[in-house]
């Protein structure tokens, strides 16, 4: 128990040092622009199919569940608003972050982990290139930038499939759905909730890179890094969401 606690505190300390190093290289020149764009494509563009599918699923499920409940209370007219508010405030951001954490977190952990165990990171360093700048900072910045954009895509897909699913059961014009749905939407339902996904992206990038660059133990270590990157990033995202939701409520009340 004591050893586990000490191990956890050591891990936390190393994470703090890592974050400090990553932040310094991310904000100071020279910037790795080409690699950053490549990572934004890898993390953002290539996550689109998964995010679109997840968003579509959220919207469908929300519509199916919410419609029955509202009918029970004779409040079916609130369906568009409930779907859209739910998607914008929480479902869209959290599901996008968890889905991307799985794909990107594992991918970064595995990629950097395999580079670590095959000395590729050392080879980059010996080539007089800062591996933190080239590999870590670019991935963290790319995750931070792309998560809000992916969330917007997921939100759009969820809102549209929410309408389509409702439309299958009863006639509802898109203009009615959107008009009534967005009546209740305010600034703090959209902007802060989407912006908080930048924090999620930061956490996913940091954890994935940290676990990857600490990999030891050959191919088994790479697997452990990929798995732990997903698990820890997902946990951090959920915990951060609790804090950020409260913060948004307090700041934008």
């Amino acid at each position: 128990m004591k050893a586990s606690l000490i191990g956890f505190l050591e891990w936390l300390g190393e994470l703090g040092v890592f974050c400090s190093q990553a932040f310094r290289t991310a904000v100071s020149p020279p910037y790795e622009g080409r690699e950053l764009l490549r990572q934004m494509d890898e993390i953002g563009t290539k996550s689109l199919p998964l995010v679109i599918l997840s968003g579509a699923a959220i919207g469908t499920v929300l519509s199916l569940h919410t419609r029955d409940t509202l009918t029970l209370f004779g409040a079916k007219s609130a369906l568009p608003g409930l779907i859209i508010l739910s998607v914008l405030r929480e479902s869209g951001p959290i599901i996008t972050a968890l889905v991307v954490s799985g794909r990107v977190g594992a991918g970064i952990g595995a990629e950097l982990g395999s580079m670590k165990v095959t000395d590729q990171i050392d080879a980059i360093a010996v080539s007089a290139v800062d591996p933190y700048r080239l590999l870590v900072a670019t991935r963290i910045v790319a995750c931070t930038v792309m998560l809000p954009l992916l969330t917007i895509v997921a939100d759009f897909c969820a809102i549209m499939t929410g309408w389509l699913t409702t439309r299958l059961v009863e006639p509802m014009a898109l203009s009615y759905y959107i008009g009534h749905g967005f009546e209740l939407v305010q600034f703090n339902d959209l902007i802060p909730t989407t912006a908080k996904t930048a924090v999620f992206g930061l956490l996913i990038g940091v954890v994935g890179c940290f676990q990857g660059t600490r990999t030891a133990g050959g191919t088994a270590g790479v697997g452990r890094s990929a798995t732990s990157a997903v698990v820890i990033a997902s946990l951090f995202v959920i915990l951060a969401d609790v804090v950020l939701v409260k913060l948004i409520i307090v700041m934008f009340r």
Partner: protein
Amino acid sequence: MTRDGRGTVPSQADDPVIRISGVRKSFGRQMVLDGIDLDVGRGETMTILGRSGTGKSVLLKLIVGLQKPDAGSIHIGGQEIVDVPLERLNEIRKKLGFLFQHAALYDSLTVEENVAFPLARHTDLPDAERRQRAAELLSRVGLEGDRAKMPSDISGGMKKRVGLARALALDPEIMLLDEPTAGLDPITAAEIIELIGELGKAGERSAIVVTHDLRSVEALADRVALLKEGSIVIEGSFEEVSQSDDPFVAAFLRPTFGHQHV
């Protein structure tokens, strides 16, 4: 002083290109290097021998700044590399060419892109010239036809050749080779040794070769240093070390040198 086609052995008065003084390194409670003093002269090939796990590769990593010694100093070209800012360390690293034990090729890049990586990062050469230079380097190691292949598509010996070509990309003053023949069959190992002899030692280029392969020592070494339990037990010219009466040295070197003294 000249020895049998291996080039001139520099005198003690020449400034060494690498000076290692009092270097110590431990991992936890395990002392790996316990007070290493070593000089490598200009144009000289120093071979560091020792049993597996005696700190040979750790010493190489200390020299290129991948790890920091617990004590001591390391000078390359007269410049201290321990505890210096990364920018200064990277300027020194541009003068080094490092061949990793398993080549450490970037597996997301083609063979050509691997070799061109240092050129892309540290020169202003346009893309066409970079590719031409990479093609020349690959031609020198006999892999001009494999430019477009990925590292996963080539053999271990070919990876070593690509690694060697990449290490030579910036025409370094000092080559560092970590177990260049590890994991290779005898024929391929002999080819790599020959290649290193031709390319790695050209002109005034100095080299440190870490190995426990005695064929590499015989073919490449101007001077030999033998590591045992974290210390250098003997260091000197090829002839001096081969004539040592020390039982450990004799037992280590006998398979190669024993028959020469018959």
